[in-house]
């Protein structure tokens, strides 16, 4: 009870769905790149198991550069990326509405990757990278604004003054709770 929430860890791998998704990643790496790919897949799975899915996604794509030569078949790349999608989605099954969250994840991945692919068709990879990062920033800011609106933290006027707290006036129920907590406090002072 006394621990600060700064130390609250985000969910990392460890349960069997995560292990299965990481195993699928290893298999995909092995199928695409042989024994060397299997080794790279194992290293990626280990990183993902210890540090969490984001690190598996990052380490796995860097490893792909080493084990998959440029100009490889599209089917091979799609197979590996499908395994990565599994790694991406498995942690999102927790929560109140995993379907919506998974939909946001898949949509975001498709949009970001699609924009990168579209830009790459006509522009340099540098512009594609910038486009992905800018799009990511726009998406994050949009969700941030959505959260402010849903929580009522947006000020009424547009002058950028301090936000208005969410809660309304105390209700009769809260008054009743005041009485109960006063009569039975758990004192530790």
């Amino acid at each position, binding site marked *: 009870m006394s621990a600060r929430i700064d130390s609250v860890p985000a969910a990392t791998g460890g349960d069997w769905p995560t292990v299965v998704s990481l195993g699928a990643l290893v298999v995909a790496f092995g199928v695409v790149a042989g024994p060397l790919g299997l080794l790279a897949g194992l290293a990626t799975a280990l990183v993902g198991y210890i540090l969490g899915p984001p690190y598996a996604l990052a380490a796995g*794509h860097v490893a792909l*550069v080493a084990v998959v030569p440029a100009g490889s078949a599209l089917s091979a790349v799609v197979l590996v990326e499908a395994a990565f999608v599994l790694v991406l989605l498995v942690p999102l099954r927790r929560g*109140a509405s995993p379907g919506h*969250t998974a939909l946001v994840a898949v949509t975001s991945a498709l949009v*970001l990757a699609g924009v990168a*692919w579209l830009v790459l068709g006509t522009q340099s990879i540098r512009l594609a990278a910038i486009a992905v990062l800018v799009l990511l920033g726009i998406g994050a800011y949009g969700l941030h604004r959505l959260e402010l609106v849903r929580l009522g933290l947006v000020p009424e006027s547009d002058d950028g003054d301090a936000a208005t*707290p969410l809660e309304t006036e105390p209700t009769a129920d809260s008054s009743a709770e005041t009485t109960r*907590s006063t009569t039975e406090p758990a004192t530790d002072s």
Partner: protein
Amino acid sequence: MYLTRRGWTVGALAAVLAVLAVVFARPIVLAGSAFLGAWLLAHQYRFTRDIERTVDSLSVVQSPARTTIRTGDEMPVTLTARRETETALSLEITAGLPVGTTTTEPIAVTLAPSVERADRTRTSRWPIAGRHSFDRATVTATDGLFSETVTVGTTPTVAVEPPSPRTIHVGEGGDRIAASYGSHETGQTGSGIELAELREYVPGDTEKQIDWKATARHGTPYVRDYEAETDRRTLLVVDHRASLATGSRAETQLEALREIALVIAGNARRLNDPLGLVTVGDDGITNHIGMASSVVNYGSVRRHLLELEATAADTTPVATASRSDGPPTADATAASSSTIGSAETHESPPSAETTTSPIARNATGRPVAPRQDRPAPAAVRRSLDDLEGTDDTFARTLRPFYTDRQVYRERIAETPLYGAVQRTVTNTKGATWTVICTDDSRPAELHETVSLARRGSSEVTVLLAPAVLYEPGGLADLERAYDRYLAFEEFRRELAKLDGVTALEVGPADRLSAVLEAGRSRSRGGHA
């Protein structure tokens, strides 16, 4: 919404992958950046939904133990948090204490994802007077990647009363005096404006007093008498010895007596009565402002009263003063070795004799011999001198008694209050209203002092602050407090019986009411 350190790390990973894609010129690495971005956005979306549900279902209540408190007092404040929806968020909730309210540690609770309810109570101190409203409790929610802070909950209000004594009661036996201080009747006639009476002429009346119109109407000489307009010389004798410091902060006996003394001084100023002040500490007189016009004296009297503080305890003269009449007894010896007026002294329980014995008992429960028949010190000295010349059985029997009386008088004369009155009141010429402000911890000394003041002035008012009404925790046992108050009241009445003496109690009205209510409850119980 803010990214935590771990959230920033994931965002940086996405950026690094984008850079690596450019460096290696391999678009597949850019796909990794897109996946990381999607992972981040999905978690941000989930956090947004979770915090909305959490805030909707969160109940935070801040409960001060009381809604009214005295300045500087402490009271517990309880923070209770409960959520009805299970989410992946951890919540840290901090109470919104008003500005100026202090606690040893912040009042905060943490709700882990699996915890539904938590509460915490801490003692808070309220040093600033006024009405203080709590701020809403601050809730910081995080899932490890993102965090957000919102304010929720009730905002109770606490009224902090200023540190002056509550209502000060001045009266007799629990009844407030009807008229306190103001214009006063001298009971004399003379030159003035207000008509006193119209009466028949008697030999000795001057011709100027004859009311010729009334004389014509009645056919016999009539004279007009007028109220004599005189100044009442007011001398304040304020005791500020260590025992007067009894009471909680800003509610001591000295504080209450100071308030009353200031009122009396103010009235003297309003009526242009001459005013004087004597303050008495443990070592004797600490200040003496001679009798003079209140126009001249009021400022310095007021300033000295406001600056008055209880002096450091010096047990020697006090212990001597508190001796009861007669040779030292075991009880008296024990009393003399302790500080009179201390809590220990007052803790001694009064015996049944307190209310049944004709012998009065002082506030400490020790018997005090009847004072009405006590001879004056001069009479004692004279009787002793008379006995010196004879050597019969009668003289031999009485000599030890008068010798002991003489020693007692000498001891009383050494006490600060008695000595101060002896030096000031008895040397004051003309009729004076002497107001003695003190407590009940030294009944013997006070009795002699009042008798002495009565001889030196026309009228004496004693303002007594009973210790039982001031001691912190003194009302913990109301039955015992009532017994002690009875002992005090008996002593007060004894003083009031003296000719020309008014003895009034000065104490906090609420505490006095509590004590008197305990007495009434006892009476009802006795009758039932």
